[in-house]
């Protein structure tokens, strides 16, 4: 089969690999029909995630068709069209039993602090991902769901992570009616977080970014006010001014470990790699939220420490809430919102690349060329 392969920082290509085998009785093998590159894949691509091995196939956002099932699989059949959450989870450990699917304890031997994720280094379990023609799907009776007939494939693939994470991020914010919500980052996660904030009763939603096409999307897709941080010497002051010096009731950090906006943090975090990425957005969130407010963090960070202003968070009495998204827990309610048109995940998609052009897709997305917001990967595009 053809698969995306990591060759070191800033280097990916497509290679021939063996089609994955059933390795556990509850495995399924899924033929991938559509995949996506996530902003967090760029952390791997830039060499920020420890234990990212050469030859690894990335990709934790994908949908496909069940090709084979292991002997204990009961809930899936060959030929089923499935959407697969980015989490690999057992469904039975202490954490899964309480709905914390992203914190599963039975699928990632390499770390206890994070659950299993497809194609996201050995720090999340050492599973090859879905930017390929076929992928091994463990715990097949637990993770995948059949794609509803009415659902568009591009909605389905965005729901496997980005959209679910945006929706989850708004929930973590514990938004109350009339709250002013600031969303940092107008990527796919931030855009859906902004849409979702309205569903939870926000009175005002402000999206902060600096890429014009993304800010435009925030205005049109998410009906949000926008702040272009490039226009201000200090965006935190602008956030305070726009909230009458209170600060936002809720800030959703939808950027993660490669945030722009501070040259020193960028250089130390993503170029020199002397800290685990660039936590600019996290610090803006802590500074920009009001005292006693809530910061929701759904931007992805690695395990290496960051220079975060924790003292201010303490002194302001903030509630900090965060997690990797337990995706499947979000789906039943999200499906209703997508069907009703309240959430429109596929609106974030801007580019579609054949798998053979994966190197180009990564560079375009990484460098934010050509207005790229969300690139999809089509494995069998001829």
């Amino acid at each position, binding site marked *: 089969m053809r698969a995306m392969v990591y*060759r*070191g*920082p*800033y*280097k*990916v290509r497509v290679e021939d690999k063996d089609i994955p085998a059933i*390795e*556990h009785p*509850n495995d399924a093998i899924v033929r991938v029909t559509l995949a996506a590159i996530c902003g967090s894949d760029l952390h791997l691509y830039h060499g920020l995630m*420890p234990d990212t091995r*050469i030859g690894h196939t990335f990709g934790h956002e994908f949908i496909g068709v069940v090709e084979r099932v292991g002997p204990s699989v009961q809930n899936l059949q060959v030929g089923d069209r499935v959407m697969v959450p980015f989490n*690999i989870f057992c*469904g*039975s450990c202490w954490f*899964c*039993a*309480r*709905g*914390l699917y992203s914190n599963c304890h*039975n*699928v990632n*031997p*390499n*770390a206890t602090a994070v659950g299993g994720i497809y194609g996201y280094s050995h720090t999340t379990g*050492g*599973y*090859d991902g879905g930017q390929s023609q076929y992928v091994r799907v*463990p715990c097949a*009776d637990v993770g995948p769901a059949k794609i509803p007939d009415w659902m568009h494939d591009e909605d389905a693939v965005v729901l496997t992570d980005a959209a679910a994470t945006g929706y989850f991020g708004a*929930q973590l914010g514990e938004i109350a*009616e*009339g709250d*002013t919500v600031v969303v940092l980052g107008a990527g796919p996660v931030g855009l859906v977080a902004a849409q*979702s904030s*309205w*569903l939870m*009763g926000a009175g005002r939603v402000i999206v902060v970014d*600096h890429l014009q096409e993304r800010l435009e999307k925030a205005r049109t897709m998410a009906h949000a006010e926008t702040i272009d941080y*490039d226009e201000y010497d200090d965006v935190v002051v602008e956030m305070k001014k726009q909230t*009458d010096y*209170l*600060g936002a009731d809720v800030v959703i950090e939808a950027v993660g470990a490669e945030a*722009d*906006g501070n040259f020193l943090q960028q250089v130390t975090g*993503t*170029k020199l790699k002397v800290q685990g990425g660039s936590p600019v957005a996290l610090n803006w969130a802590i500074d920009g939220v009001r005292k006693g407010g809530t910061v929701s963090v759904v931007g992805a960070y690695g*395990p*290496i420490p960051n220079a975060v202003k924790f003292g201010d968070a303490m002194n302001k009495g903030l509630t900090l809430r965060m997690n990797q998204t337990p995706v499947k*827990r979000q789906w039943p*309610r999200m499906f209703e*919102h997508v069907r*009703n*048109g309240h959430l429109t995940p596929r609106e974030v998609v801007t580019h579609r690349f054949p798998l053979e052009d994966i*190197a*180009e897709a990564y*560079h*375009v997305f990484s*460098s934010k*060329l*050509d207005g790229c917001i969300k690139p999809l990967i089509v494995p069998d595009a001829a």
Partner: protein
Amino acid sequence: MTQSDIPSAYVRDKRTPPPSREELRARIPGWGADLDPADRPSYPRLQYPSDTGAHWDFPERQPGGEGREHSIEHAFVTPVFGTAQPLSGLSGAIRRLAYARFSEGRLAHWVLLVVGDRVDAWEHHLRSFASGRPDVPATGLRTEFTRGGVRSRRGRSDVRHQLLDPVVVLGPWVAGVGGAVLGVRRLVRAVRG
């Protein structure tokens, strides 16, 4: 500044109340659909028992876990695990040390894994030079010309640090080639006496 100009933060209530429900519902599709926290799927945070579809109390153990590296914060190799890219070579030895000796709470664990990543990359780069498909410092660069590299970056503040990317990407390669040249030169001199 008059009394009425004093911003909300310094007085009891917000000066500007949020728009009414009717106004928001008219403007925003689905506004307030999840107003009640009980309608939000991750509320409350812990939901027990969660209906997951698992028909086991503990997953059957996947074969092949003997000797597989695992965090020492785990009691054992988990019953389900990835088998992609098993440990090998010098990078494998470094990574095995990281897992065997240091917990996730120790910076040494992560630093060793990062060192293992860089060694792994160079092990494969060197091997690739002997293959028909040598590695290059960066891939996908033709899109700089086909996807508007200059146009896309116009006016963007992140250009300042993106200017460092060529140094970050090429630096190790230049250092590697330089080191190799120096090494070969010394070897040749040593052989010649």
